Protein backbone atom coordinates (compact mmCIF):
# COMPACT_ATOMS: atom_id res chain seq x y z
CA UNK A 1 0.00 0.00 0.00
CA UNK A 2 1.37 3.39 -0.93
CA UNK A 3 1.97 5.67 2.03
CA UNK A 4 -0.81 8.18 2.54
CA UNK A 5 0.24 11.78 2.05
CA UNK A 6 0.22 13.90 5.21
CA UNK A 7 -2.79 16.15 5.40
CA UNK A 8 -2.53 19.88 5.78
CA UNK A 9 -3.30 21.46 9.13
CA UNK A 10 -6.24 23.34 7.68
CA UNK A 11 -7.77 20.21 6.21
CA UNK A 12 -7.53 18.34 9.49
CA UNK A 13 -8.88 21.24 11.49
CA UNK A 14 -11.82 21.49 9.12
CA UNK A 15 -12.60 17.80 9.46
CA UNK A 16 -12.55 17.44 13.25
CA UNK A 17 -15.34 18.44 15.60
CA UNK A 18 -15.08 21.88 17.12
CA UNK A 19 -16.00 23.69 20.28
CA UNK A 20 -16.35 27.38 20.85
CA UNK A 21 -12.97 28.94 21.63
CA UNK A 22 -14.52 31.02 24.41
CA UNK A 23 -15.54 27.93 26.36
CA UNK A 24 -11.98 26.71 25.96
CA UNK A 25 -10.47 30.04 26.97
CA UNK A 26 -12.68 30.50 30.02
CA UNK A 27 -12.18 26.90 31.15
CA UNK A 28 -8.44 27.35 30.93
CA UNK A 29 -8.80 30.57 32.89
CA UNK A 30 -10.75 28.69 35.55
CA UNK A 31 -7.94 26.14 35.81
CA UNK A 32 -5.26 28.78 36.19
CA UNK A 33 -7.32 30.58 38.80
CA UNK A 34 -7.83 27.36 40.76
CA UNK A 35 -4.10 26.67 40.67
CA UNK A 36 -3.27 30.17 41.86
CA UNK A 37 -5.66 29.77 44.77
CA UNK A 38 -4.45 26.29 45.70
CA UNK A 39 -0.71 26.62 45.22
CA UNK A 40 -0.27 30.31 46.06
CA UNK A 41 3.26 30.47 44.67
CA UNK A 42 3.42 31.58 41.03
CA UNK A 43 6.45 29.34 40.47
CA UNK A 44 4.47 26.30 41.60
CA UNK A 45 1.65 27.24 39.25
CA UNK A 46 4.08 27.41 36.33
CA UNK A 47 5.31 23.94 37.22
CA UNK A 48 1.82 22.50 37.58
CA UNK A 49 0.68 23.99 34.26
CA UNK A 50 3.72 22.50 32.58
CA UNK A 51 2.97 19.12 34.16
CA UNK A 52 -0.65 19.25 33.00
CA UNK A 53 0.54 20.12 29.52
CA UNK A 54 2.96 17.23 29.60
CA UNK A 55 0.14 14.84 30.55
CA UNK A 56 -1.89 16.17 27.65
CA UNK A 57 1.01 15.95 25.20
CA UNK A 58 1.63 12.32 26.06
CA UNK A 59 -1.94 11.48 25.07
CA UNK A 60 -2.40 14.05 22.34
CA UNK A 61 0.37 12.62 20.18
CA UNK A 62 -1.79 9.55 19.50
CA UNK A 63 -4.64 11.63 18.17
CA UNK A 64 -2.18 13.71 16.20
CA UNK A 65 -0.55 10.72 14.49
CA UNK A 66 -3.87 9.02 13.86
CA UNK A 67 -5.45 12.01 12.16
CA UNK A 68 -2.56 13.69 10.37
CA UNK A 69 -1.02 10.76 8.45
CA UNK A 70 2.36 12.24 9.32
CA UNK A 71 5.07 9.63 9.15
CA UNK A 72 8.53 9.71 10.62
CA UNK A 73 10.28 13.05 10.29
CA UNK A 74 13.78 12.91 8.87
CA UNK A 75 15.24 15.49 11.22
CA UNK A 76 14.40 17.90 13.98
CA UNK A 77 13.84 20.66 11.44
CA UNK A 78 10.99 18.77 9.86
CA UNK A 79 9.60 17.93 13.29
CA UNK A 80 9.46 21.59 14.27
CA UNK A 81 7.73 22.44 11.00
CA UNK A 82 5.15 19.73 11.50
CA UNK A 83 4.39 20.96 15.02
CA UNK A 84 3.99 24.54 13.89
CA UNK A 85 2.11 23.96 10.65
CA UNK A 86 0.00 20.92 11.52
CA UNK A 87 0.02 20.45 15.29
CA UNK A 88 -1.04 23.91 16.41
CA UNK A 89 -3.43 24.28 13.51
CA UNK A 90 -5.12 20.97 14.09
CA UNK A 91 -5.86 21.45 17.79
CA UNK A 92 -6.10 25.18 18.36
CA UNK A 93 -6.96 26.32 14.85
CA UNK A 94 -4.06 28.77 14.81
CA UNK A 95 -0.98 28.78 12.65
CA UNK A 96 2.58 29.16 13.81
CA UNK A 97 5.93 29.66 12.16
CA UNK A 98 9.38 28.36 12.92
CA UNK A 99 12.30 30.76 13.16
CA UNK A 100 15.57 31.45 14.92
CA UNK A 101 17.36 28.20 14.14
CA UNK A 102 20.73 27.82 15.78
CA UNK A 103 23.76 26.67 13.80
CA UNK A 104 23.53 22.95 14.48
CA UNK A 105 19.78 22.72 14.02
CA UNK A 106 18.83 21.59 17.52
CA UNK A 107 17.18 24.71 18.81
CA UNK A 108 14.47 26.84 17.25
CA UNK A 109 11.56 29.09 18.05
CA UNK A 110 7.90 28.56 17.31
CA UNK A 111 6.05 31.85 16.98
CA UNK A 112 2.28 31.70 17.33
CA UNK A 113 0.15 33.75 14.99
CA UNK A 114 -2.69 33.80 17.45
CA UNK A 115 -3.33 32.39 20.88
CA UNK A 116 -6.83 31.46 21.95
CA UNK A 117 -5.72 30.87 25.55
CA UNK A 118 -5.17 34.54 26.32
CA UNK A 119 -8.42 36.19 25.22
CA UNK A 120 -9.75 38.34 28.10
CA UNK A 121 -6.51 37.87 30.05
CA UNK A 122 -4.36 40.45 31.72
CA UNK A 123 -1.83 39.55 34.39
CA UNK A 124 -2.30 41.39 37.68
CA UNK A 125 0.75 42.78 39.47
CA UNK A 126 0.83 39.84 41.86
CA UNK A 127 1.21 37.34 39.01
CA UNK A 128 3.95 38.94 36.98
CA UNK A 129 6.11 35.82 37.20
CA UNK A 130 3.37 33.64 35.77
CA UNK A 131 3.83 31.97 32.42
CA UNK A 132 0.13 31.94 31.68
CA UNK A 133 0.40 29.67 28.65
CA UNK A 134 2.86 27.28 30.22
CA UNK A 135 0.50 24.43 29.45
CA UNK A 136 1.43 24.74 25.77
CA UNK A 137 5.13 24.24 26.41
CA UNK A 138 4.26 21.14 28.43
CA UNK A 139 2.15 19.79 25.58
CA UNK A 140 4.99 20.15 23.08
CA UNK A 141 7.48 18.57 25.47
CA UNK A 142 5.17 15.66 26.30
CA UNK A 143 4.25 14.96 22.71
CA UNK A 144 7.88 15.00 21.54
CA UNK A 145 8.95 12.71 24.33
CA UNK A 146 6.53 10.11 23.02
CA UNK A 147 8.32 10.18 19.67
CA UNK A 148 11.70 9.68 21.33
CA UNK A 149 12.84 13.28 21.57
CA UNK A 150 13.82 14.79 24.86
CA UNK A 151 13.32 18.51 24.63
CA UNK A 152 13.34 21.59 26.75
CA UNK A 153 10.58 24.04 25.93
CA UNK A 154 10.58 27.56 27.31
CA UNK A 155 8.79 30.83 26.64
CA UNK A 156 11.04 33.47 25.11
CA UNK A 157 8.41 36.07 24.36
CA UNK A 158 5.02 36.34 25.99
CA UNK A 159 2.57 39.09 25.07
CA UNK A 160 1.01 39.02 28.51
CA UNK A 161 4.39 40.16 29.78
CA UNK A 162 4.58 42.99 27.30
CA UNK A 163 6.45 41.31 24.45
CA UNK A 164 5.28 41.60 20.87
CA UNK A 165 4.60 37.92 20.18
CA UNK A 166 4.20 34.49 21.69
CA UNK A 167 7.44 32.65 21.08
CA UNK A 168 8.26 29.17 22.32
CA UNK A 169 11.83 28.01 22.26
CA UNK A 170 12.21 24.30 21.61
CA UNK A 171 15.62 22.84 22.32
CA UNK A 172 16.41 19.27 21.42
CA UNK A 173 18.36 17.71 24.27
CA UNK A 174 18.77 14.21 22.92
CA UNK A 175 17.12 11.68 20.72
CA UNK A 176 16.39 8.54 22.63
CA UNK A 177 17.07 5.50 20.49
CA UNK A 178 14.05 3.29 20.26
CA UNK A 179 14.50 0.04 22.06
CA UNK A 180 12.65 -3.17 21.61
CA UNK A 181 10.84 -3.53 24.90
CA UNK A 182 11.48 -7.26 25.41
CA UNK A 183 14.54 -9.41 25.30
CA UNK A 184 14.39 -12.11 22.66
CA UNK A 185 14.25 -14.99 25.10
CA UNK A 186 11.40 -13.61 27.18
Amino acid at each position, binding site marked *: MAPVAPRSGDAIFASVE*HVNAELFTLTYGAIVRQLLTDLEEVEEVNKQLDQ*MGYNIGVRLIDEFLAKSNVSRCVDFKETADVIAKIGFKMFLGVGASVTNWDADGTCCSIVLEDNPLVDFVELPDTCQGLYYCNILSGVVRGALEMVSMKTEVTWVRDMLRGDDAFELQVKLLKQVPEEYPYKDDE
Partner: protein
Amino acid sequence: MIGVGKIKQYANVLEKPLSKGKQEVSLGAFAFLFSELVQYNQTQVDNIAELERRLEDAGYSVGARILELLCHRDKGNRRETRLLGILSFVHSTVWKVLFGKVADSLEKGTEHEDEYMISEKELLVNRFISIPKDMGTFNCGAFVAGIVRGVLDSAGFPAVVTAHFVPMEGQQRPRTTILIKFAEEFLQCSFSSPVLNPCPCNVLAYSIAVLTSHHAHHALPFQLNHKGLCIAPVELD
Protein backbone atom coordinates in the same frame (compact mmCIF):
# COMPACT_ATOMS: atom_id res chain seq x y z
CA MET B 1 -9.72 34.06 8.42
CA ILE B 2 -8.45 32.93 11.74
CA GLY B 3 -4.83 33.34 12.65
CA VAL B 4 -3.65 35.30 9.65
CA GLY B 5 -1.00 37.86 10.42
CA LYS B 6 0.53 38.86 13.69
CA ILE B 7 -1.45 39.52 16.81
CA LYS B 8 -1.91 43.19 17.48
CA GLN B 9 -0.67 44.54 20.74
CA TYR B 10 -2.89 46.56 23.05
CA ALA B 11 -1.93 48.58 26.07
CA ASN B 12 -4.47 46.74 28.15
CA VAL B 13 -7.08 44.09 27.77
CA LEU B 14 -9.97 46.53 27.78
CA GLU B 15 -8.80 48.24 24.64
CA LYS B 16 -8.84 45.03 22.72
CA PRO B 17 -12.03 44.73 20.69
CA LEU B 18 -14.30 41.88 21.74
CA SER B 19 -14.09 38.92 19.45
CA LYS B 20 -17.27 37.98 17.62
CA GLY B 21 -17.23 34.62 19.33
CA LYS B 22 -16.92 32.70 16.10
CA GLN B 23 -13.46 31.34 16.74
CA GLU B 24 -13.21 27.65 17.44
CA VAL B 25 -10.73 25.09 18.68
CA SER B 26 -10.86 21.36 18.17
CA LEU B 27 -13.05 19.28 20.43
CA GLY B 28 -9.98 17.19 21.23
CA ALA B 29 -8.14 20.17 22.65
CA PHE B 30 -11.05 20.97 24.94
CA ALA B 31 -11.49 17.34 25.99
CA PHE B 32 -7.81 17.07 26.93
CA LEU B 33 -7.98 20.29 28.90
CA PHE B 34 -11.14 19.27 30.70
CA SER B 35 -9.69 15.89 31.58
CA GLU B 36 -6.70 17.66 33.15
CA LEU B 37 -9.07 19.86 35.15
CA VAL B 38 -10.82 16.77 36.51
CA GLN B 39 -7.61 14.87 37.18
CA TYR B 40 -5.97 17.79 38.94
CA ASN B 41 -8.99 18.28 41.17
CA GLN B 42 -9.04 14.58 41.97
CA THR B 43 -5.65 15.02 43.60
CA GLN B 44 -7.00 17.80 45.80
CA VAL B 45 -9.95 16.03 47.42
CA ASP B 46 -10.84 13.01 49.56
CA ASN B 47 -14.39 12.42 48.44
CA ILE B 48 -16.78 12.72 45.55
CA ALA B 49 -18.85 15.53 47.00
CA GLU B 50 -15.76 17.65 47.42
CA LEU B 51 -14.65 16.88 43.85
CA GLU B 52 -18.03 17.91 42.48
CA ARG B 53 -17.94 21.07 44.52
CA ARG B 54 -14.54 22.01 43.11
CA LEU B 55 -15.62 21.35 39.52
CA GLU B 56 -18.71 23.40 40.19
CA ASP B 57 -16.59 26.26 41.47
CA ALA B 58 -14.48 26.16 38.32
CA GLY B 59 -17.67 26.21 36.24
CA TYR B 60 -19.12 29.06 38.29
CA SER B 61 -16.33 31.38 37.24
CA VAL B 62 -16.94 30.45 33.60
CA GLY B 63 -20.68 31.11 33.98
CA ALA B 64 -20.26 34.50 35.61
CA ARG B 65 -17.98 35.61 32.77
CA ILE B 66 -20.05 34.21 29.95
CA LEU B 67 -23.10 36.10 31.22
CA GLU B 68 -21.18 39.35 31.23
CA LEU B 69 -19.75 38.66 27.79
CA LEU B 70 -23.04 37.70 26.16
CA CYS B 71 -25.00 40.55 27.70
CA HIS B 72 -22.43 42.99 26.51
CA ARG B 73 -21.91 41.59 23.04
CA ASP B 74 -25.28 40.24 22.01
CA LYS B 75 -27.85 41.98 24.13
CA GLY B 76 -26.72 45.59 24.14
CA ASN B 77 -25.87 45.56 27.83
CA ARG B 78 -29.29 44.31 28.83
CA ARG B 79 -29.91 41.23 30.81
CA GLU B 80 -32.92 39.07 31.50
CA THR B 81 -34.76 40.12 34.60
CA ARG B 82 -37.52 37.56 34.68
CA LEU B 83 -37.17 34.03 35.97
CA LEU B 84 -38.42 32.33 32.83
CA GLY B 85 -36.49 34.77 30.71
CA ILE B 86 -33.18 33.93 32.32
CA LEU B 87 -33.95 30.20 32.23
CA SER B 88 -34.61 30.24 28.53
CA PHE B 89 -31.54 32.43 28.07
CA VAL B 90 -29.47 29.68 29.72
CA HIS B 91 -31.24 26.91 27.84
CA SER B 92 -30.91 28.49 24.41
CA THR B 93 -28.44 31.37 24.15
CA VAL B 94 -25.80 30.22 26.64
CA TRP B 95 -26.04 26.60 25.54
CA LYS B 96 -25.77 27.52 21.89
CA VAL B 97 -22.68 29.61 22.45
CA LEU B 98 -20.92 27.14 24.71
CA PHE B 99 -21.96 23.82 23.25
CA GLY B 100 -23.02 24.72 19.73
CA LYS B 101 -26.63 23.68 20.20
CA VAL B 102 -29.72 24.48 22.21
CA ALA B 103 -30.14 22.18 25.22
CA ASP B 104 -32.41 19.18 24.61
CA SER B 105 -35.05 20.26 27.07
CA LEU B 106 -36.03 22.72 29.76
CA GLU B 107 -38.69 21.46 32.14
CA LYS B 108 -40.33 22.54 35.33
CA GLY B 109 -40.17 20.10 38.22
CA THR B 110 -43.45 18.34 38.82
CA GLU B 111 -42.99 17.75 42.53
CA HIS B 112 -41.53 21.07 43.56
CA GLU B 113 -42.56 24.48 42.31
CA ASP B 114 -39.09 25.93 42.62
CA GLU B 115 -37.25 23.33 40.54
CA TYR B 116 -36.35 23.45 36.89
CA MET B 117 -34.39 20.98 34.83
CA ILE B 118 -32.23 21.31 31.78
CA SER B 119 -31.49 17.97 30.17
CA GLU B 120 -28.96 16.96 27.61
CA LYS B 121 -28.69 13.54 26.03
CA GLU B 122 -24.95 13.73 25.61
CA LEU B 123 -23.41 16.59 27.52
CA LEU B 124 -20.24 17.85 25.84
CA VAL B 125 -18.08 17.43 28.93
CA ASN B 126 -19.31 13.87 29.46
CA ARG B 127 -18.62 12.79 25.89
CA PHE B 128 -15.33 11.08 26.58
CA ILE B 129 -15.83 10.26 30.21
CA SER B 130 -16.87 7.04 31.82
CA ILE B 131 -17.22 6.92 35.56
CA PRO B 132 -15.40 4.14 37.39
CA LYS B 133 -17.70 1.92 39.49
CA ASP B 134 -16.16 3.00 42.77
CA MET B 135 -16.97 6.64 42.14
CA GLY B 136 -20.69 6.08 42.46
CA THR B 137 -22.88 8.93 41.33
CA PHE B 138 -20.08 11.30 40.41
CA ASN B 139 -20.93 13.37 37.36
CA CYS B 140 -18.50 15.65 35.54
CA GLY B 141 -21.56 17.64 34.56
CA ALA B 142 -20.93 19.35 37.91
CA PHE B 143 -18.79 21.69 35.85
CA VAL B 144 -21.74 22.61 33.66
CA ALA B 145 -23.96 22.87 36.73
CA GLY B 146 -21.42 25.37 37.99
CA ILE B 147 -21.65 27.34 34.75
CA VAL B 148 -25.45 27.48 35.07
CA ARG B 149 -25.18 28.55 38.71
CA GLY B 150 -22.65 31.21 37.74
CA VAL B 151 -24.95 32.66 35.10
CA LEU B 152 -28.04 32.59 37.33
CA ASP B 153 -26.30 33.93 40.40
CA SER B 154 -24.65 36.78 38.54
CA ALA B 155 -27.97 37.70 36.99
CA GLY B 156 -29.49 37.96 40.44
CA PHE B 157 -31.23 34.59 40.63
CA PRO B 158 -29.40 32.62 43.30
CA ALA B 159 -30.00 28.89 42.97
CA VAL B 160 -28.58 25.53 43.92
CA VAL B 161 -27.62 23.68 40.76
CA THR B 162 -26.62 20.03 40.54
CA ALA B 163 -25.92 17.53 37.77
CA HIS B 164 -27.39 14.03 37.71
CA PHE B 165 -27.34 11.02 35.45
CA VAL B 166 -30.81 9.87 34.47
CA PRO B 167 -31.02 6.44 32.83
CA MET B 168 -32.95 6.44 29.57
CA GLU B 169 -34.96 3.55 28.29
CA GLY B 170 -33.47 1.96 25.24
CA GLN B 171 -30.30 4.04 25.50
CA GLN B 172 -26.96 2.75 26.56
CA ARG B 173 -25.76 5.98 28.11
CA PRO B 174 -27.77 7.91 30.65
CA ARG B 175 -28.64 11.48 29.91
CA THR B 176 -27.48 14.30 32.15
CA THR B 177 -29.98 16.49 33.90
CA ILE B 178 -29.00 19.80 35.39
CA LEU B 179 -31.32 20.42 38.31
CA ILE B 180 -31.89 24.03 39.26
CA LYS B 181 -33.46 24.77 42.62
CA PHE B 182 -34.10 28.41 43.28
CA ALA B 183 -33.66 29.94 46.68
CA GLU B 184 -36.85 29.67 48.66
CA GLU B 185 -37.47 33.31 49.46
CA PHE B 186 -37.55 33.86 45.78
CA LEU B 187 -40.75 32.12 44.93
CA GLN B 188 -42.56 32.26 48.23
CA CYS B 189 -43.36 35.90 48.61
CA SER B 190 -46.20 37.24 46.57
CA PHE B 191 -46.45 40.34 44.44
CA SER B 192 -46.88 43.66 46.12
CA SER B 193 -50.05 45.66 46.04
CA PRO B 194 -51.52 46.49 42.63
CA VAL B 195 -50.87 50.24 42.80
CA LEU B 196 -47.21 49.46 42.33
CA ASN B 197 -46.23 49.22 38.72
CA PRO B 198 -42.87 47.95 37.59
CA CYS B 199 -40.32 50.67 37.30
CA PRO B 200 -40.02 51.57 33.61
CA CYS B 201 -36.23 51.56 33.74
CA ASN B 202 -36.48 47.85 34.42
CA VAL B 203 -33.14 47.59 36.14
CA LEU B 204 -32.52 44.50 38.13
CA ALA B 205 -30.99 45.29 41.45
CA TYR B 206 -30.19 42.94 44.21
CA SER B 207 -28.84 45.31 46.74
CA ILE B 208 -30.33 48.46 48.08
CA ALA B 209 -27.10 50.30 47.42
CA VAL B 210 -27.22 49.55 43.70
CA LEU B 211 -30.86 50.49 43.65
CA THR B 212 -30.37 53.80 45.38
CA SER B 213 -27.83 54.92 42.85
CA HIS B 214 -29.77 53.64 39.87
CA HIS B 215 -33.08 54.99 40.96
CA ALA B 216 -32.34 58.36 42.34
CA HIS B 217 -34.94 59.69 39.93
CA HIS B 218 -37.76 58.08 41.86
CA ALA B 219 -39.27 60.63 44.17
CA LEU B 220 -41.02 57.99 46.22
CA PRO B 221 -39.29 55.17 48.04
CA PHE B 222 -38.90 52.18 45.79
CA GLN B 223 -39.70 48.60 46.49
CA LEU B 224 -38.42 45.29 45.30
CA ASN B 225 -40.59 42.53 44.04
CA HIS B 226 -39.88 38.87 44.68
CA LYS B 227 -37.30 38.67 41.94
CA GLY B 228 -35.32 41.61 43.16
CA LEU B 229 -36.79 43.72 40.41
CA CYS B 230 -37.36 47.33 41.23
CA ILE B 231 -41.01 48.21 41.42
CA ALA B 232 -41.10 51.85 42.26
CA PRO B 233 -44.47 53.27 43.06
CA VAL B 234 -45.70 55.26 40.09
CA GLU B 235 -47.14 58.62 40.93
CA LEU B 236 -50.76 58.93 39.85
CA ASP B 237 -52.04 62.32 38.79
